[in-house]
């Protein structure tokens, strides 16, 4: 956090914008879930949630203005969780005698 450079007050308009966007995206997400998209619902839902997460993380948690140590730590955590989820799905998909 580079508080010496930035006046904390200057961030407030950004917070308000993020607030509005987060609420709007939540509504969009709910609305989209009633569309008959089949499996596409999950994709849309996760996409919208991902955008919300980036907004909250980047602006509200000041991640965009953080230093690179924090960026590296989070990159590591994200890489691990992605590895966990992706490899789990692959393991699920590739089983012997797989009957679905």
């Amino acid at each position, binding site marked *: 956090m580079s508080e010496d450079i930035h006046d904390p007050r200057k961030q407030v308009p950004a917070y308000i914008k993020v607030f509005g966007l987060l609420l709007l995206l939540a509504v969009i997400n709910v609305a989209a879930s009633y569309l008959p998209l089949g499996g596409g619902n999950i994709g849309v839902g996760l996409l919208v949630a991902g955008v919300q997460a980036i907004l909250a993380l980047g602006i509200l948690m000041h991640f965009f203005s953080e230093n690179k140590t924090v960026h590296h730590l989070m990159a590591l955590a994200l890489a691990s969780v992605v590895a966990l989820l992706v*490899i789990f799905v692959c393991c699920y998909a590739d089983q012997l005698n797989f009957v679905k």
Partner: protein
Amino acid sequence: MRQDMNEQEHTMGRLQGSGSAAVAHGAGPHEHHIQLSWWRRYVFSTDHKVIGIQYMITSLLVALFGFGLMVVMRWQLSFPGKPVPVIGPLLTAVFGANMAPGGVMTPNLYNSFGAIHGTMMIFMAIVPALFAGFGNFVVPLQIGAPDMAFPRLNMASFWSFFVGVVIMLGSFLVPGGAAKSGWTSYVPLADVADTGMGFDPILNGQTLWLIGMAFNITGSLLGSVNIIATIIQLRAPGLQWMRLPVFVWSELVTAFLLLLAFPPLESAAIMQLMDRLFGTSFFSPDGLIIGGRHWPGSGGGSALLWQHLFWFLGHPEVYVQILPTMGIVGEVISNNTRKPLWSYKVFVYSLLSIGFLSMIVWAHHMYMTGMGQSITTFFQIFTTIISIPSVLLGTVLLLSLWGGSIRLPVPMLFALAWLPMFGIGGLTGLPLGWTASDMVLHDTYYVIGHFHYMMAPASIMGLFAGIYYWFPKATGRMLNEFWGKVHFWMTIIFFNGVFFPMLVQGFVGVHRRWYDGGAGWQLAQNVLWLNQVMSVSAWILAIGQIPFIINFFWSTWHGKKVTSDNPWQANTLEWAAPTPPGHGNFLHPITVYRGPYEYSVPGAARDYLPQWEGEESKVAEPKLSSV
């Protein structure tokens, strides 16, 4: 040598924070310090050194207990169905007549002992001793910090761990005894174990296992946050990343592994608790039949899910146990060969790549669960690739010996013995990393032999190397050299006596979970005699630890006092602190001028150049020798 340092201080003046003045006023640090009560200083202490020693002593006691469980089990394996001599009546008295009638181990008691031996040795002995014990005591000293970054959090993590240990030990005393489903707690066995008639819904072995593990995991997580934050934030001025001692690097990588790999197991433990307490079916598949009856649950769960989540931790955990010993051995070998590590960079990058790779190889524990060919290929490739940095690390340590003027104090003996133990442990792992050979060897004593070589001989060699090496810094006294050597030879010989025959038995096909040691299986008859070799070795190994235990306590109060703050003439920062270091560790602010292994630098007056001594000492030294 002491004189040497004093002279040096004269010449260097106030430029360097030399620790040599420390012996003279070792009690100095407490001068301006409010005296804390006995409880706050030795029990609920926030001082990283006290916490490190608490971790070390607790986990050594746990290790002794876990080893004791095994000593009893080895009787059953060699002489199945015969009453355990000497402590048989004790078993009956403690565990009840239905667990040990007439001093004979029942299958339930054997399973309890096996499960708790594995769990406690791994999660509550080796990891806390190596990672938390040495990590707490040594890391802040080696990076020139006054304490850990979060001292109170540090205390919390120790006590969380301690509660976990107490719960796990206490689980032996509840109706039905301790957990019996192996250290892996595989489901659905673990879901249904210890339930029903005669078991308490909460105070039963498996549920307490889960609760104890939850406490232990919480302690580990807090501890790893603390270690990483300390290493990132509290390095002394001048201590750049590539000047960190290899032990600090190994602790850093280990801490990251714990931080990122433990939480999925915690979530798996929560799910198993839900299964056991609220009747969910996370891990119970459709149509599960137990004892001829449909298990009353909704079904729809997956037993493989538990295995994946378990091994997602389980595999990095193996490296958690071995990486800190690599760091310790690196320190000891460099110090006692009086030369730099053969390649510091290769060592560090190998540690880092092991760290990354160890997160994506876990399913090589699960080849027999019906994984498809593509995904097993993925895991085989990465399992094979991870052996490259492992071999590089071993090579760096081995080549460091080349051309060195080797001293052989006790820590060095243990460090040298670590090399072949690590070699055997590592190389026997390769056939298990490939599906074709794993199919034959899976679940045999070969597997037991392989991973024990890594976790017992290798890890414990590193553990003892570390204890003998840093004991003088912690207590101001040396461990007795002669009894140390007795301990060393007893340990190394009989460790191999215990574990090498396992590899042989495994090739014959002796299964790891047999309660009679293979007596009931026709093809095992030719290797049954090895059971007795292993058992006798285990018992002598136990006797061989007595010299160490006595030595440890005797030397703490009556050992030979060190004559200098730097008895091994080492370079790293912990030796700049007074002996034993007071609260806040260092007497002067520390500045670091060079890498950690500048031994036998050409042109220098001494064969070591401590990290905390400035460039001027090189200039000053020739003057000194001419005086």
